[in-house]
Every structure is written in C-alpha cells, then in structure tokens.
C-alpha cells in the first residue's frame, strides 16, 4: 500500500510546486534572486526547476517510467535537502526566505524535516527495484 502511496505523494508534491512556480513565475524568479546564488544562475534555475519537476511528475505517472521518476525525485530532493542543510549550517552569509508555495509559511528547519521524510519515503519506494538489481544474475557475474 505504501509503495502505491509514495508515488502519489511525489506526484502531488511536484505538480503542486511546479504549477505554483509557473503560475507565479515572476514571484518565483524574484524569490530565487533573494537566494544566495548568482543572479544569472537564479534566472536559469527559475526556468529549469519547474520543468524538471513537471518531467519528474510525468515519469511517475507511467508504470514504465515510474522508476526513473523515483530516481529523479530522489535527485531533486537530495539537491534541495543539501541546499537547506547548507543554509542552516550557515554556509551562506544570510538565511534567505523559504518562499515557495505552501512552504513559504514554514521555517527552514521544518522544511528540512519534510524533505528528509520525503527522501526516506522515496528511498523506500526504490528499495524493491534496488533489491532486484542487486539480485540480478548480471550483477552476480560482475
């Protein structure tokens, strides 16, 4: 049951966050300009992130591409979790606002816990696939 719920949770997360970014693209671009990253990179990310989220959600919708979608989710969540951790560990000169969608009302600490939970859930969803890969004859022969 959990294995079926995790992709649904990720689809909801990525469709909501990508649509939220696209409906308020100017605001999202502005919020990225307020992050401790170069402005050119911020502009580029403001276009790349929603597209990556849509593609990830799209992959999760189809059984054939769901595993790719889970890996993409793991990748996106890992990058964002590392970024949040870097903020909380004061790697940057300031703590910017966490201003995306529903997450604009929560602190970076809460954000980190949510991300870690989602990372664990995504990992759990990928476990059967990883187990199959490890048990495959090709893998044993290597």
């Amino acid at each position: 049951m959990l294995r079926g719920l995790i992709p649904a949770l990720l689809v909801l997360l990525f469709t909501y966050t990508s649509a939220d970014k696209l409906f308020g693209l100017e605001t999202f671009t502005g919020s990225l300009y307020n992050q401790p990253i170069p402005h050119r990179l911020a502009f580029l990310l403001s276009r790349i992130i929603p597209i990556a989220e849509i593609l990830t959600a799209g992959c999760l919708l189809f059984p054939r591409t769901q595993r790719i979608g889970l890996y993409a989710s793991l990748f996106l969540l890992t990058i964002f979790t590392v970024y949040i951790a870097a903020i909380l560990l004061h790697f940057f000169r300031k703590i910017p606002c966490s201003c995306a969608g529903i997450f604009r009302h929560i602190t970076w600490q809460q954000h980190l816990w949510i991300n870690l939970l989602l990372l664990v859930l995504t990992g759990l969803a990928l476990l059967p696939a990883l187990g199959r890969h490890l048990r495959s004859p090709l893998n044993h022969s290597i």
Partner: protein
Amino acid sequence: MRKIKWPLLLVAVFGVCAAYVNKPAPKASPKDIHTYSYWYTASGHMYYGFDCTSLGWIQGLDYDCIYPSSICTFAADPTRSHSDATGNYFFTWDVPVAGINYDGAFQLFP
C-alpha cells in the same frame, strides 16, 4: 498514454488545481521603480535606481517607502531577510549606505 496510472493523473490534476487556487496575488506594477541608495559627492548626488518588484518584493510586506522624500528609501521587514543586487542586507530603515562611484561600480559607504 494507454498505460497511464489514472489515479496518479487525478492526483496530478488536483496538485495543479491546488496551486492555481493558491497562486500569488498580483503585485505592483513592475514600473514602480524605487531609488534606494545614493553616493554623495561634493558636486551632488548620484542615484542608483532599482526595481524592487522585479525581485518579487512586495511593497508593504517586504519593504516600504519612507516619505516625504523625492527619493524613496526603504523600511524593510526584518523578519523577511533580503539582500539587494550586491548581496547587502535590508534589515532596518535604510539610511542610504551605498551607491555608484565615478567608475560606475557599486560601493559601500565607509
């Protein structure tokens, strides 16, 4: 398309609808340009114009203008940490602290 997981597609549609319902309110005109700092010289002032709204800042929430003045300076909300184009903070009443020097470079007052 034949093999799509329909319950997940419904979840995706729900996500998009939820984002649409919660989409941000329209902001002030992008032409609302506020000068926020200047470089004072013996011959006068050199002003540095800046469009706050292009960064997604919302007047009355992220910043506010202090009048009366021909120059709009800032009172920023300290709970909403921001930096300007150069990475400097706007935490308090923004007495002009920086500007453009004769070389055209942004420079902090000593």
